[in-house]
């Protein structure tokens, strides 16, 4: 049976223009990363990956301790920490605060965590106006779409597509010059920044020992989001914690290079609470929303908890030959690519996305580029073992195991079975194979047969 996942895959594969856009745009990111982490450009790369992995492991294994330390520091800086179990608790908090402060317009900087909980839709549903201010996010918000990619939300669009959506939604003349498009968005968004009541951001890192929220970006919109409005709300998954400010260097060096090939993003902001007496910039109120949304469930699983080490660089998406064929919107959740394939089943429940862990050739390219060394193929294998199987397939593998532990039966049934497989071209697996490529000619004799003949001769 074809489900929504397979339907979307089919549509994406059948769209040559989209295929070309995904392939070329990911190729650019792959090349930039490759140059940035090369031995000449970044000799400490492998050492830093190992360090980053160890730091994340330590942080996740002591999350309770560091979260409390972080909260105490945020409070000391004059901020408030809101602990939220799920999407509803986050939107309820924002809605109540907006009601109390009579706020309506909300500017947002790029945040996968808010995408994960569909925050925009929830706020819009209650009459608020959230506006995405990252250019890519702004474009896909106009198109009412999910991000196509963790780092490059409009990866699937060309400047011609952007001109189309600007003309349709903003009523401006069709203009395919990227600089002009950027200036259009900038002009419109400046007004929103100045008028906004609340700014909502995500967080790249939460530093336990300083209470700082660290944000990295290239457009400057996150700075405006977090400083122009009177209220700043940062929404962060609990796994974003790192123990010490002195460890930040490890992650900042890896993140920019892995994501876009930049040694450092254009802006790196350290935000510690609201504006203090005598300061010119900054919000009057600062709230840090700590979101669980299934993360604590993952921590309980020793083998798979490494999935929480992710720093959302998107390198695994760019290198993934499957992502490069099926794109971001085939995936069932906001997170796409290899990292999406391992976290979606764990957050949403494995039987919610039973086919997802199987949509991989297990090539391992993702693990090779992961800056925090998440063993994605191993987690996929573990998830495959946990998915409820179809009784028919299970029976087939029981027969397989029985045959492979009974050599004589294996040889006999291989002789008959292979012939049948090659003859029965309409049987589902043969048909699926033949839909794409030819089958080899089955040999007259197996290796075992040939080897016996050879032994007789000598």
């Amino acid at each position, binding site marked *: 049976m074809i489900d929504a996942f397979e339907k979307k895959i089919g549509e994406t594969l059948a769209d040559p223009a989209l295929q070309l856009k995904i392939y070329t745009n990911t190729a650019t990111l792959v090349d930039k990363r490759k140059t940035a982490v090369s031995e000449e450009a970044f000799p400490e790369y492998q050492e830093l990956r190992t360090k980053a992995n160890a730091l994340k492991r330590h942080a996740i294994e002591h999350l309770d301790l560091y979260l409390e330390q972080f909260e105490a520091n945020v409070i000391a800086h004059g901020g408030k920490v809101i602990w939220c179990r799920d999407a509803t608790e986050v939107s309820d908090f924002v809605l109540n605060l907006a009601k109390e402060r009579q706020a309506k317009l909300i500017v947002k900087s790029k945040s996968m965590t808010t995408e994960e909980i569909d925050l925009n839709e929830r706020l819009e549903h209650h009459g608020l106006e959230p506006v995405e201010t990252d250019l890519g996010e702004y474009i896909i918000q106009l198109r009412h779409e999910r991000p196509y990619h963790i780092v490059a939300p409009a990866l699937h669009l060309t400047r011609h597509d952007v001109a189309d959506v600007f003309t349709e939604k903003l009523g401006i003349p069709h203009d395919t010059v990227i600089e002009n498009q950027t200036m259009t968005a900038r002009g419109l968004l400046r007004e929103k920044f100045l008028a906004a009541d609340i700014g909502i951001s995500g967080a790249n890192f939460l530093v336990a020992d300083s209470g700082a929220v660290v944000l990295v970006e290239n457009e400057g919109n996150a700075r405006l989001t977090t400083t122009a409005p009177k209220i700043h709300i940062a929404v962060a998954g609990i796994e974003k914690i790192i123990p010490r400010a002195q460890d930040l260097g490890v992650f900042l060096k890896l993140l920019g290079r892995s994501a876009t090939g930049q040694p450092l993003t254009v802006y790196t902001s350290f935000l510690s609470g609201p504006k203090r007496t005598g300061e010119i910039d900054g919000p009057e109120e600062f709230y840090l929303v700590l979101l669980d949304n299934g993360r604590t469930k993952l921590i309980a699983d020793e083998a798979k908890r490494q999935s929480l080490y992710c720093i959302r660089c998107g390198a695994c998406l760019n290198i993934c030959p499957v992502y490069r064929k099926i794109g971001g919107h085939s995936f069932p959740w906001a997170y796409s690519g290899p990292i999406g394939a391992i976290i979606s089943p764990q957050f949403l429940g494995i039987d919610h996305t039973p086919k997802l862990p199987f949509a991989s050739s*297990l090539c391992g390219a993702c693990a090779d580029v992961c800056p925090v060394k998440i063993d994605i193929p191993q987690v996929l294998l573990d998830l495959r073992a946990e998915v409820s199987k179809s009784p028919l397939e299970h029976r087939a593998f029981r027969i397989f195991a029985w045959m492979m532990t009974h050599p004589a039966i294996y040889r006999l049934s291989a002789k008959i079975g292979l012939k049948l497989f090659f003859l029965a071209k309409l049987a589902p697996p043969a048909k699926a194979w033949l*839909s794409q490529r030819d089958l080899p000619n089955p040999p007259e004799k197996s290796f075992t047969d040939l080897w016996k003949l050879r032994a007789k001769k000598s």
Partner: protein
Amino acid sequence: MAKGRISLFVTCVVDQLFPNVGIAMADVLERAGYELDVPENQTCCGQPAFNSGYREEARMVAEHFRKVFADAEYVIVPSGSCASMISHHFHDLQVKVAPKVYEFSTFLTEVAKIEDFGAKFDGVVTYHDSCHALRDLRIKEGPRRLLSKVRGLELREMDAAEECCGFGGTFSVKFAGISGGMARTKIESIKRTGADTIVSIDSSCLMQLQGAISREGLNMKTMHLAEVLASK
């Protein structure tokens, strides 16, 4: 002069679909001076079940492998993928094997320490890095060095040498469209080299690529490294 006795695990794919690869591997290893043992009861490493999530079924097959090769000192495998299943994933199944298990080309370069087998092959060859060989076993230069010693052979690198061919076991039929697309992308890269022969150390990758080549009617062929090294 025999250097010692080594055991061959030819894998189910080679046994049933590419028997000549097994014969070629045996020829090369005999030429290297080894006495060969081919246990009759060998079957499969269990990877199809393991990768499909059937741990118990995979464990049964792994356990069978362990028993069949219990007395071997070295087991040589003409596949990076099956070798990696044994050396990396039997651990996940709590199966521990006694012999040292080597992928074929690695055994030649690291244990036998012979790279020139007097082979002769006229053709332009490009080498496909199979994923488990490259990323689990870190095999990259060995097969290329072996190919560079073959007379008449010209080796040309493709830009996507490290990209997956799209086979992926049951993935190739469960997600046939993606798998086929991946094979075609790979073949585009191969075409750009002008090579007439694609060589790899994994027959299953070659089956995938050969299937796509044949479907497109291209004038290329695929060969296992052992077959090239056995060519005279």
